[in-house]
Every structure is written in structure tokens, then in C-alpha cells.
């Protein structure tokens, strides 16, 4: 807590920027280093804290805006509507949870699928929206993912997926589990067609999403310090009854264990992916990659 906040009586302290996405307003506080940041400055840094390089969570639309040329993207047609096939209900009806999430995010479900350009290269991009029920994968997400892979197959343009997900969506039961098989099978086709798939893992990528599409990239990139794994750390700690090692299931841990190819700062993601794709598709890039100046 900053010295200023400590001086304030607890009544008027705010919970600014606790965990969720990037809050609105002119000023934002970094949840990692508590630095107070000017919103416009933060935007210029793609919501990476300029002080401590903490990568804040992004909505799917912000994600593709920061990634594609001129922030322009064209959503694929016919996004499927999520369905409550099980008539699922816990403390709330699944249907109500769905419509609340749709209202909050103005999206149909947790996956955005679009076309755009990356340094002039036509690409198909899908991005998970963690704000939509934890980015969980149900039938509509699986189907949307396949639509994006198919768009890539039809156009021959490379496929890029940003994952941010707690895993399979429990409220759709086995339908959700089967999306792991479905999305993976579509990637088998993509691989056979020799179209590159760059999988970019962001915080967090867990469970059924990690154990299917996310780990199947031809090249797998992670943002710094993202939580990535199959089982959540809390469940593992309960099972093994041990304190988990420092940095367990973080990007750096995965890189050191050979699970991913590289860790890339969000501010360099565009250049790096474009450079990779150009080489994989045996093309020249007709732009000059900026020197790595953003890293402090």
C-alpha cells in the first residue's frame, strides 16, 4: 500500500485495480507495484505497467486491437449463441450467468474470432475473454474456435490464438470436455495444411484450454509471469500437501522446463510474431522491426 493510502482512513480507501481487467478512469493503479499510472500512458504501453512491467489482463477486443495493424479487425460472421443444454443451475441459473456476462462484456461468449493484418500479413486471430465467465470453454467457444481455424484454412493465412481461460466450462458438462477434442482435431487439419499456428498464452491459461488448443501451437509464446498449467495451484497444494516452489506454473517456470518456446513482452508481441510468421511462410517482411527499446 502506498504511503498516501496508509494515511487515509480505511473508510475512504478504494480497491482500485484489484484483480479485474483494467479499470476505467484517468488514473489507474498497478496491482503489482501499486504505482499510480496515467491511463493514456498505460494505454500506450498496451496495459503493461511502465514501472514494473506487470502485464495486466486484457479483454479480448483490447487484445486484438493492440495486436493488429492500426487496431483494426473484422469479426468473423455467424458467432454461435451459447446454449444451456443441461438446464444447469447452482446458486444461480447458468442462463442468468450467461446473460449477465453478455451484458457486461457485450460479447456473445468468451472467444473473439477475427481477421486482420499483422505488419501487412493477413492473419486469423482468436482471443479468449477472461472477463466472460473466466474465459471458460463451452460448446459455443469451441465452435467459434473451429470457425476461426476454418477461416485460416480457407484463406491460407496463419492462425494466432491468445488464450486466457480457467478451463472447460462446468455448466455445460461433457459438452465442454468434448470441445477439447473438437478444437484439437481442427488444429490437426491446420497442421496438415502446413499453416502456422502461433499459440500465445496469457494470464491465466489453465485446465481444459491448456490441455488442448493452447499447447498445440507450432510456436508457443507466453506473456511474462502468466499462470499456465493443467491443475490449479490450490488443488495441487491440497493434493501433495507441500508448499509449491517459487514461481511454480509461471511462464518462466514453463520455459525452463521446456514447455514453451519463448516469453515475449506484450509491447514486442506484434513485431516478434510477424517476424516468426514471415520466416515460417518464407516471406520477407517489408518493414523494419523496431529495436528492443521498450524493455527496461
Amino acid at each position, binding site marked *: 500500500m502506498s504511503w498516501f493510502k496508509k494515511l487515509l482512513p480505511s473508510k475512504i480507501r478504494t480497491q482500485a485495480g484489484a484483480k479485474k481487467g483494467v479499470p476505467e478512469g484517468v488514473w489507474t493503479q498497478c496491482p503489482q507495484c501499486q504505482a499510480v499510472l496515467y491511463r493514456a500512458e498505460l494505454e500506450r504501453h498496451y496495459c503493461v505497467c511502465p514501472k514494473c512491467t506487470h502485464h495486466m489482463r486484457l479483454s479480448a477486443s483490447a487484445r486484438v486491437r493492440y495486436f493488429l495493424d492500426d487496431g483494426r479487425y473484422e469479426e468473423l460472421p455467424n458467432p454461435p449463441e451459447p446454449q444451456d443444454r443441461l438446464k444447469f443451475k447452482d446458486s444461480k441459473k447458468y442462463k442468468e450467468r450467461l446473460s449477465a456476462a453478455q451484458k457486461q462484456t457485450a460479447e456473445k461468449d468468451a472467444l473473439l474470432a477475427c481477421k486482420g493484418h499483422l505488419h501487412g500479413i493477413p492473419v486469423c486471430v482468436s482471443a479468449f475473454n477472461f472477463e466472460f465467465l473466466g474465459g471458460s470453454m463451452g460448446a459455443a467457444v469451441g465452435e467459434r474456435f473451429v470457425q476461426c481455424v476454418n477461416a485460416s484454412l480457407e484463406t491460407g493465412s496463419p492462425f494466432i490464438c491468445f488464450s486466457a481461460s480457467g478451463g*472447460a466450462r462446468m455448466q455445460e458438462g461433457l459438452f465442454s470436455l*468434448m470441445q*477439447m*477434442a473438437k478444437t484439437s482435431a*481442427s*488444429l490437426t487439419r491446420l497442421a496438415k495444411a502446413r499453416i502456422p499456428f502461433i499459440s500465445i498464452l496469457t494470464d491465466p491459461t489453465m485446465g481444459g484450454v491448456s*490441455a488442448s488448443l493452447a499447447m498445440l501451437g507450432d510456436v508457443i509464446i507466453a506473456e511474462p509471469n502468466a499462470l499456465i498449467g*493443467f491443475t490449479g495451484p490450490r488443488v495441487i497444494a491440497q493434493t501433495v500437501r507441500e508448499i509449491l516452489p517459487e514461481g511454480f506454473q509461471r511462464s518462466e517456470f514453463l520455459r525452463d522446463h521446456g514447455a514453451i518456446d519463448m516469453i515475449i513482452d506484450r509491447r514486442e508481441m506484434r513485431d516478434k510474431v510477424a517476424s516468426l510468421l514471415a520466416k515460417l511462410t518464407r516471406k520477407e517482411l517489408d518493414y523494419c522491426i523496431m529495436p528492443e527499446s521498450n524493455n527496461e
Partner: protein
Amino acid sequence: MNLNFLDFEQPIAELEAKIEELQRVGKDGKININEEVMRLKGKSQSLTKSIFSSLTPWQVTQMARHPLRPYTNDYIHLLFTEFDELHGDRHYKDDLAIVGGIARLDGKPVMIIGQQKGRTTKEKVRRNFGMPHPEGYRKALRLAKLAERFKLPILTFIDTPGAYPGIGAEERNQSEAIARNLFEMADLRVPIICTVIGEGCSGGALGIGVGDAVLMLQYSYYSVISPEGCASILWKSADKASVAAEAMCITADKLKQFGLIDNIIEEPVGGAHRDPKVMGERLKAVLVKELVNLEAMSIDQLLERRYERLMALGR
């Protein structure tokens, strides 16, 4: 015979105890109790039938986890001949939570891959309670690829509470091991039949679950997460497992209605463990029949069909 009766089977247990008692008395006494024993046995049968005609999803879950339930190795011995077990992933170790090997089904060579639980405490630990590590999934994939090369159909038997949630499993990339299997099995150029024989829980089950036909034994379950896991996340209490089991529609009949599985194999009255031999015969008959159907197709037809079936899931 000790049948390890579950809570909801208590009325049957009491009746069976009475029958045993009578038989013991009958042995040393001079009274003829045959008629009474026969009558009680009939009663026990019909009681079992009526109790089992309306099991709740949570009761089915308990059946799927029954300590006497036949495991993969039991079915291997009941259904197949000349089983040669093949070990190891060639990289790290032999994961005993997954068994595999070549055998004959009605004389035809096939590849078997299945999750294996243990029955005694020692065996349970050795089998890691049927929870595979990444090396288990990699062994499965190695055997599947071997099968593809020599054109052996693959039969998988699913029985796991989930992939192992441990530090080593994460270090060796449990996610990738499962994902790779999904990716490869979608396009493996041999027929694949997957049967859930007990617990089909989460990605750990699906890791050997992609194929051309998905079957379930009557009292097995197949779910995205264990009822306890779901309950502790959504209801904030593992005690609500029975409610979660109901809500997630994890039983064979529900899943068949949803078109997520192809076929249900009926179990003997009181469950597979009451008569493993009959269970084995029924399972074998279905597997043989399914295999004949699948082998009637050309491989390209089969792969197209497999792909279309996967794409249709939840569409």
C-alpha cells in the same frame, strides 16, 4: 461372499446376510430351509432390480468407483487372448496408471490401452489410483502410433478420477501430454473404440478418449470434472457432490440422449462386479460388432467420419 455393499444397497445387504445365516443353520440342523432360502434369494434379486432401476447420478458415481468393480486388467483377461503388455514412454518412465499392449480379440490382433486402478492398498499406490502422469499419456500415444503403423485397431478403456494433479506432472507438462493425444488421435489411421468402464473424469479421461465409437458401461460416469470438484467450486462445498452429479448430467443414459456417446452396455443386476464374466461377454460382443462396422469403411472414410463427429459435438 463379501460384496462391499454401498449405503444405498443396505436393504440388499441385510437380506443377503439373512440368507447366509439361514444357510449356515441349515447345514448343521435337520430342518429343511431350502424353500425359505430360495424365497429370500428371489426377494433379494427383485429388491436389487428395483433399487438399481432408479439409481441417482451420485449413486452411479459410487458404483463407478466401487472397490470391487472390474478394472482394465480384469477385462483384458476376460476378453482377450495372448496379451503382451508393452511398457514405458521411452523418455521418462513406465506409468503404471496406464496399461497397454497387443492382444487378440476373437483371434484378431488389436492394441489395448487403458487406465488401471489398484485393488489392494499397495496396488493402489503402485497404480497411483488410476491417475496418469504425462508419461502415461505419452506411453499411450507411443502404443497408438505403433498400432497405426501395423494397422491394429485400438481399444481404449477409460477408468480414471483424473490426470494426476502434482508438481512433477506439471513440470513434465501434463497439459501438453493430453493435448498431443487429442491432436494425434483425431487423425490416427486405424479404427479406435473408447469404452468408459468406470470413472471417466475430465481431461485425464479424454486423453485416451478420442475415437470412432464411444461406449459406456451402464453404471460408469463421464464428466468434465468430478462431482466433488464441481461442488467445491460452484457450491463452495464438496458435500454438494450429489447435487453437482445431478446437474452435470454425467450418466450414460443422459449422455446418450445428448448424442455425446454412441452406446450403453448393460451391466448385470447389481453391477459389473456381481458377475464380471457376464459383463465381459457383453462388452466383448459389443466391441466385436462395433469393430466389424468400423472396419467396413475405408480408412479415409473413417477419418472423415471421425472428424465430422468431433465437429458436430455441441454444434
